[in-house]
């Protein structure tokens, strides 16, 4: 096994990982591992932009942004973290501009801003333009910028390395083991600080906006070390997935003024959010859509609705939403300057994840005690910026703000910490054994079938609307799937680029956290944000204004614990749009 050493090792090269690498790289020796080439990371798919209360196009302030974020998250977000997010969003946006991000511009040459669902001015009263964007390729531009800046900082990249385990001993993270996909060899990385920035996990659902790589790999890695996963039941379904692929049609389409119609030609949002209409938060719009579809008012009674942009005019569409236009032509053969776009809700974003403190340090007990040298940021983490439901454009901003904070914190930490503890084969033996065992499996189960059944059952039972009955069914079914997973064989005997093996590793992880999601969702007997229980349709602040912490015990069972929400500014109130 080859051994490598860096002060800081970052796992994941999306916006979060790269921002951290770039910042830490200013003073420390940084290595970045990613299972895909950095610019292939899922962050590149983000279209609509990143929220920051610059007030370039009308009045805005970070207090308004904070209020929207708190309320959008149905009061489950930690308000100290949320305050950091909305405050630091402003200098971070300027920093990205200074680094060269090609923002779209206002006529005066300032960073252009557009409206987005759930964002308002004057504490929910007026409209606001808050999303800073690069046409509809915002994530793409940010991802490339941060990759290039990391190169400039001399960050060392290990591309197409799949991390398979963390080495955590006595509450200290010493390094990790990764599979070099190109050769099939295992490598050990030793570091003083390790950051997980492995992104989201909506691939566990059948209809999803996420890339094939979004299999949530980071979560099972830490769960195995006894770290709990926080608020995993909160998974966002985006209202406008292109039918039938689930590929995302950015919320910018509604931000720019698109309308939603049902099969009867009615702008059905009137019924669900009369004042904000299409610009209500995502959970609200997705539920409205699902209700329309379930009650037979889909287009031609089918499983989709229409998103109409035609009234915006071809020029405006081509100028501000060029990528959406291209995407819809390519994947649905629809010219959205002339015809409405067929859409459906699509699994999109994971609010929950690895619990961290405000400096992105991973919390061993989910509350106070940190794992020394282990950090997490971006979509895989949960500082709880988004609570029960994330607002559009807040997540790339979270990845940037907290990736950056993590980078700075790690650089500071490694300056003070002792030398990198060198490890040897004894430390990595277990990790190696595990992979070798997987590689030589000969069972007759098919990974594809298990994956498909997982995705179908999660969509059916842990989808937009949930009930105790469905969730119980899913918890049981997860056991069956996990048993069957042990019988999956690997037909490809080669070492180099064995993607059958890497997909299997990813599937194992998905089964792991999907079970945690189901158990967490079953326990939460209320409806809040994206977690909507038909059997408990109301929010219950007395019982459930608290974060779920799900521990994977040594015997494989799941133990639930809870912690209070940080509420220091806005008291919970009814959420109406």
């Amino acid at each position, binding site marked *: 096994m080859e051994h490598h050493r860096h002060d800081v090792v970052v796992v994941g090269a999306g916006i979060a990982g790269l921002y951290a690498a770039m910042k830490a790289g200013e003073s420390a020796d940084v290595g970045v591992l990613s299972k*895909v*080439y950095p*610019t*292939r*990371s*899922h962050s*590149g*798919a983000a279209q609509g932009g990143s929220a920051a209360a610059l007030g370039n196009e009308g009045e805005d302030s970070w207090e308004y942004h904070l209020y929207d974020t708190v309320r959008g998250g149905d009061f489950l977000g930690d308000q100290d973290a949320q305050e950091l997010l909305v405050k630091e969003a402003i200098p971070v*946006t*300027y920093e990205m*501009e*200074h*680094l*060269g991000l*090609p*923002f*779209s*511009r206002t*006529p*005066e*040459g*300032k*960073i252009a801003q557009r409206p987005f669902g759930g964002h308002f001015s004057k504490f929910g009263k007026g409209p606001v333009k808050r999303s800073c964007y*690069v046409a509809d*390729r915002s994530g*793409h*531009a940010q991802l*490339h910028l941060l990759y*290039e*800046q990391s*190169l*400039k900082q001399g960050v060392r990249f290990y*591309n197409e390395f799949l991390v398979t385990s963390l080495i955590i001993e006595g509450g200290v993270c010493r390094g990790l083991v990764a599979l070099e996909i*190109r050769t099939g060899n295992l490598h050990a990385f030793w570091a003083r600080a390790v950051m997980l920035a492995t992104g989201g996990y909506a691939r566990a659902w059948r209809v999803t906006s996420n*890339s*094939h*790589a979004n299999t949530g790999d980071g979560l099972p890695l830490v769960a195995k070390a006894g770290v709990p996963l926080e608020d995993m039941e909160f998974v966002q379904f985006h209202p406008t997935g292109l039918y*039938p*692929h689930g*590929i*995302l049609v950015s919320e910018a389409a509604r931000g720019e003024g698109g309308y939603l119609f049902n099969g009867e030609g009615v702008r059905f949002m009137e019924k669900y959010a009369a004042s904000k209409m299409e610009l209500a938060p995502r959970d609200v719009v997705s539920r409205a859509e699902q209700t329309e579809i379930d009650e037979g008012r889909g287009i031609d009674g089918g499983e989709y609705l229409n998103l109409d942009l035609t009234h915006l005019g071809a020029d405006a569409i081509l100028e501000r939403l060029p*990528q959406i236009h291209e*995407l819809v032509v*390519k*994947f*649905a*053969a629809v010219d959205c300057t002339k015809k409405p776009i067929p859409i459906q809700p699509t699994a999109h974003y994971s609010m929950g994840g690895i619990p961290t403190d405000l400096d992105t340090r991973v919390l061993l007990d989910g509350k106070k005690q940190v794992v020394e040298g282990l950090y997490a940021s971006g979509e895989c983490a949960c500082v709880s910026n988004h609570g029960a439901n994330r607002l559009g454009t807040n997540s790339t901003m979270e990845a940037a703000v907290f990736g950056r904070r993590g980078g700075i914190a790690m650089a500071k930490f490694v300056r003070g910490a002792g030398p990198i503890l060198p490890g040897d084969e004894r430390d990595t033996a277990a990790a190696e054994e595990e992979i070798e065992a997987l590689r030589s499996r000969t069972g007759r189960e*098919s*990974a*594809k079938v298990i994956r498909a059944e997982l995705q179908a059952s999660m969509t059916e039972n842990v989808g937009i609307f949930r009930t105790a009955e469905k969730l119980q069914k899913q918890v049981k079914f997860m056991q069956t799937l996990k048993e069957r997973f042990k019988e999956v064989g*690997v*037909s*490809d005997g*080669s*070492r*180099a*680029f*064995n*993607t*059958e093996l890497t997909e299997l590793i990813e599937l194992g992880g998905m089964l792991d956290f999907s079970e945690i999601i189901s158990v967490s969702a079953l326990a939460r007997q209320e409806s809040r944000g994206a977690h909507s229980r038909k059997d408990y349709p109301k929010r219950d602040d007395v019982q459930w204004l608290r974060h779920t912490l799900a521990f994977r015990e040594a015997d494989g069972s799941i133990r639930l614990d809870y912690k209070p929400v940080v509420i220091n500014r806005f008291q919970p109130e009814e959420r109406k749009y």
Partner: protein
Amino acid sequence: MERQFRIYRYNPEVSPTPSFKTYTVDVQPAWTVLDALNAIKWDQDGSLTFRRSCRHGICGSCGMKINGKNGLACEIQVESLKGVITVEPLHGFRILRDLVTDMDGFFAHIEAVKPWLIAGTPPTDGERLQSPEDRKQLDGLYECILCGACTSACPSYWVNDDFLGPAALLKAARYVMDTRDEGFAERVDVLDSRNGLWRCHTIFNCVEACPKSLNPTEAIVKLRQKLTALKI
């Protein structure tokens, strides 16, 4: 509908010689070539190897040659293709396995053009201003997804993989054409070198190949004009 896919197979651990293997796939409506490749991998032959991630044409993973044309497998509808569909890896790069090529050199060339803004101290209290017209200069440049389809199609790159290639030169233009950038002089060293701008013979294969309808030749030509203005 049943369609046949003739796919380039190469696995040096098994055989030193590449071959083609034909698979029959029951293609569903609206399937892309990537959907079909996934179906083959998952149902018929687990050893078939290719890269994919975003599956909607934004990450650049799945660049390959489909019926003789470079493109993104995830964007090309199977219905739009006729007859037996031939799928090959991108030419010009070393093939690692099946449809997977070695992109390290490609990315090293991107790095070589110093793809970062080189500029003086920015204002402390806000953004640099840039007019919408100035910003427009970057359209057609910043959208590149680094899929490699252009460089793979360039005859000059085939015979000389030290040539920076259209993608790296387009990336250079992305920064050079930015009105905020002051680093052109620093980049001259690499642009005006033996394997830089002058290895492009305006063949336009790159333009033909780019799945994002970008125009690397135009970018290259703009760099030459800039250089001409600087030198004369």
